[in-house]
């Protein structure tokens, strides 16, 4: 029953989405990677809020609440903080993309810092960051697929199946498929969540939301505030503050967010979306209700076991049509953002790394598709290698990707920033995040619980500023790519002065 409903949803949604995506559209690189830059408010909204309801939001937030309580509430802050920053950043990225014809994050940085090598460096870092992000989505997708098929197989097999599903989806329609299937996925997910949330309180054997809170207070008193039930530094107030600070900074240098920014049809559309998106995140209230009910209904679980908490809860306490609905919506929820990630990694690598050595291939659709296969395979490998609590993985992702933030923010705000300066900072920051020998001692200097991304970012910025001041700034035309996007050629001069 679960299988039937789940599969019909998935196959139906994908077929529907592909049909609409491909109908009457000539598929070229610009269509495939940035949707032809024609997405209006409605589609752009869905593509971006698709980022709000990823597998992480679904399974990871539940995991945080079920195993800890209060730490899971951090998720309420993520979208509104990102929207506040996005109001400024996304329109600039879009305008630069439109004016200069960029399709990837690497294109922007190569132009802004007058160096294709710099674009390649940023691209490689960006790909590492999003492969880590893909690990979150694939971990979630594998769990959901196991619930769908109901067969006990090794998680490696499920991760591989997950990878194959993404491949099929992406190879045909690219960014446009993701946008259209994303619409279906968002509607279905909201319905599924509503159904589960409405039943959550009684599924936990209680009679009202008030009784839910009373029971949590009585049986899990530490869940009310940080550091929560597990009570360790990795979910305390310093973790909270540093993670919430890093999230909006890192959100826009996640290369797929960058690429999605190019797809809008204007700054007004983008800004309207920044107003509306946080409202969508109010649906996290349902996740909170479900998480607290699951906390009561399920036996106590380690943070890592709790990755599957939402599914266990629904499987145990709900009729199978609900499980089918949730699983179907869940698969789509993992497919769409991962699809976007893989499209992005592939376009970036092809344009900005391969493109340096073989310029003819920089925008070749077949080359991009080969990269899609390669990156999906790598993502599957790193997911299969080690499993962790989703919340921990995500904290690590943002520490890593946050190191790219100076490149973006200095690129948009500081004329004096140079490629060498930023690269120095970036490498230092990346090493600090990656190597315990470096981040251990630095973290001793800060309150316990602070995520490694913060000291790394501080060192990163200090080095970026110092070294930039010691090296030659980019040419004025390059600086203009990030900082003079409102300059319009005076009408009387238009014929003589093309904008290039």
């Amino acid at each position, binding site marked *: 029953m679960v299988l039937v409903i789940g599969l019909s949803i998935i196959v139906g949604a994908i077929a529907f989405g592909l049909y609409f995506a491909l109908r009457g559209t000539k598929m070229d690189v610009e269509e495939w990677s940035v949707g032809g830059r024609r997405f209006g408010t409605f589609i752009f909204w869905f593509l971006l809020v698709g980022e709000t309801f990823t597998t992480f939001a679904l399974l990871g937030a539940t995991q945080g609440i079920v195993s800890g309580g209060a730490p899971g509430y951090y998720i309420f802050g993520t979208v509104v903080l990102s929207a506040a920053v996005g*109001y400024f950043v996304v329109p600039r990225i879009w305008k630069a993309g439109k004016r200069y014809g960029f399709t990837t994050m690497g294109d922007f940085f190569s132009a802004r810092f007058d160096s294709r090598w710099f674009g390649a460096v940023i691209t490689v870092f960006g790909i590492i960051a999003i492969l880590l992000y893909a690990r979150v989505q694939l971990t979630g997708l594998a769990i959901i697929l196991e619930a769908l098929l109901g067969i006990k197989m090794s998680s490696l097999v499920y991760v591989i199946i997950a990878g194959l599903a993404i491949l099929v989806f992406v190879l045909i329609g690219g960014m446009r498929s993701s946008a259209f299937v994303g619409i279906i996925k968002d509607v279905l997910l909201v319905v599924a969540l509503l159904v589960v949330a409405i039943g959550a309180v009684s599924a936990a054997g209680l009679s009202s939301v008030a009784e839910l809170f009373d029971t949590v207070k009585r049986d899990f008193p530490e869940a009310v505030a940080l550091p929560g039930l597990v009570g360790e530094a990795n979910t305390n107030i310093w973790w909270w503050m540093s993670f919430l600070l890093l999230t909006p900074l890192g959100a826009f240098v996640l290369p797929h967010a960058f690429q999605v920014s190019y797809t809008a049809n204007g700054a007004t559309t983008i800004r309207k979306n920044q107003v509306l998106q946080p409202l969508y995140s109010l649906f996290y209230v349902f996740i909170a209700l479900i998480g607290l009910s699951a906390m009561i209904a399920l036996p106590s679980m380690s943070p890592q076991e709790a990755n599957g908490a939402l599914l266990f809860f629904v499987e145990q306490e709900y009729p199978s049509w609900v499980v089918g609905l949730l699983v179907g919506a869940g698969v789509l929820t993992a497919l769409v953002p991962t699809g976007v990630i893989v499209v992005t990694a592939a376009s970036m690598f092809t344009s900005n790394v391969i493109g340096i050595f073989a310029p003819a291939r920089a925008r070749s659709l077949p080359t991009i598709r080969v990269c899609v296969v390669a990156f999906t395979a790598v993502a599957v490998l790193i997911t299969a290698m080690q499993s962790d609590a989703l919340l921990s993985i995500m904290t690590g992702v943002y520490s890593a990707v946050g190191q790219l933030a100076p490149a973006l923010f200095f690129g948009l705000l500081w004329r004096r920033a140079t490629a060498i300066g930023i690269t120095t900072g970036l490498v230092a920051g990346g090493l600090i995040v990656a190597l315990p020998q470096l981040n251990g001692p630095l973290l001793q200097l800060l309150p316990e619980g602070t995520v490694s991304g913060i000291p790394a970012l501080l060192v990163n910025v200090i080095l970026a500023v110092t070294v930039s001041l010691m090296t030659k700034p980019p040419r004025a035309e390059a600086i203009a790519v990030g900082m*003079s996007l409102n300059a319009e050629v*005076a009408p009387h001069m238009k014929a003589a002065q093309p904008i290039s």
Partner: protein
Amino acid sequence: MSSHNETTTEPGAVGALVGEVVGDEIVVKPKRAHWLLLLIPFIWCVVLAPWANSVGYVFGSVPFLLLWMIGGILIGCAAIAIVYSIDRALGQLEVV
């Protein structure tokens, strides 16, 4: 390079923006003071978090931190909406 002011209109603008002509280009200078409102979500969710975390239960058994964060979404959204409407009234929405 001499410069003087000239008015120009941006697509989707309600009124006319003032721009300064510098050489061959008109550089638009938007009013940005109201963008300070965009800091409100950070103050609410990060700076005030330690305080919100210390309050404990409210209405009997509801964690205050949970309500505080829900409030953060509403207040933060309102702040961004205000910035948007001011930008719209000034005709600056397409000015990046």
